[in-house]
């Protein structure tokens, strides 16, 4: 057994941050977009995940702004977060390829 599989919400949050730093609301909107509106994070869930990801060193605070007199904090991926996301994406890709190869051998050129 290697590293534990990532939860979908965590994976989507890291994916949202892979394009650049984002604030909380931006992450929620981006995750909804990436998942085709299937995953809609609630703020409580988002911040629990962000807190854990920060503690694990996968994300960090990029900068803070005050917009309409409200605090907006931007988060970014750390090099460790990028690596962990790349590993997870490769793992998911390998699993998806294996499944598709068996379901539709004509599309992937043979049976695994």
């Amino acid at each position, binding site marked *: 057994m290697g590293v534990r599989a990532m939860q979908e919400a965590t994976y989507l949050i890291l994916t949202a941050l892979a394009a650049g730093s984002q604030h*909380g609301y931006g992450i929620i909107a981006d995750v909804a977009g990436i998942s085709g509106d299937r995953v809609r994070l609630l*703020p409580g869930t988002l911040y629990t995940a962000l807190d*854990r990801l920060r503690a694990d060193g996968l994300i960090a605070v990029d900068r803070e702004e005050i917009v309409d007199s409200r*605090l907006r904090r931007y988060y970014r991926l750390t090099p460790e977060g990028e690596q962990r996301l790349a590993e997870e994406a490769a793992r998911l890709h390998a699993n998806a390829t294996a499944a598709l190869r068996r379901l539709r051998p004509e599309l992937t050129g043979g049976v695994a």
Partner: protein
Amino acid sequence: MSELASPQGRSEPAGLERGYRRLLACYPRAYRRQNGEEILAVLLACARNGQQRPGLAESADLIKGAMRLRLWPAPRPPRTVQAAAWLMCAGVTAQLAYLIINVATAGSVGSAYARQYPLWAAAAVHHAVTISVVRHEVGGVIGIGVCLLLAWALVRGRNLARFAFAAVIGLDWWAMYQAAGQGATQHAQADMTAAAVTWLLILPAMVLLFFPASSRYYRPKPRVDNPVAPGLQH
């Protein structure tokens, strides 16, 4: 959250903000000080147009997040510490079950006393049973409280709690040894069985707490990236 359009330029109802602040009060103070204003801004941005008070789903989500942070703070403890905490909770459950059984079976304890000491008056038997039950209940409740307090401190990485837990186990073992020496295995079988079951759960918990992975967790390490924002400090 029914839409994810840009929230800019919208004025939020004061009642909605008050409701969110009340819910955010469930979070630990330090976390609230650091993230409260930021979460509030996101909550207000996610609110529906015209929303007057927090919805059920987002309220439940915030309460769940707050409870999670209180019970299971970041950084997350290693699996050995998590397993130890669960074993301690299982031990507390076993102890709780024993306390309930202890009260429920007080009558049969009285009969046993009467059989063992046929010369005792009924009032003396009743007195002895009452003292026995109260002693066990009070001791059990204190034990449960101490165990929960230690579990709470252990998942928060308090190294001292590991040694306090070991000391409590040592004391408990000594009390059980003394009781067995006084013939408790014969006349207090239920007590000894309950103690044995609790031990089967608590002892592996202590072993897990001294695994190398656990010891690394209890080493002091400063938390990086910990910005402090002005915010909800009530």
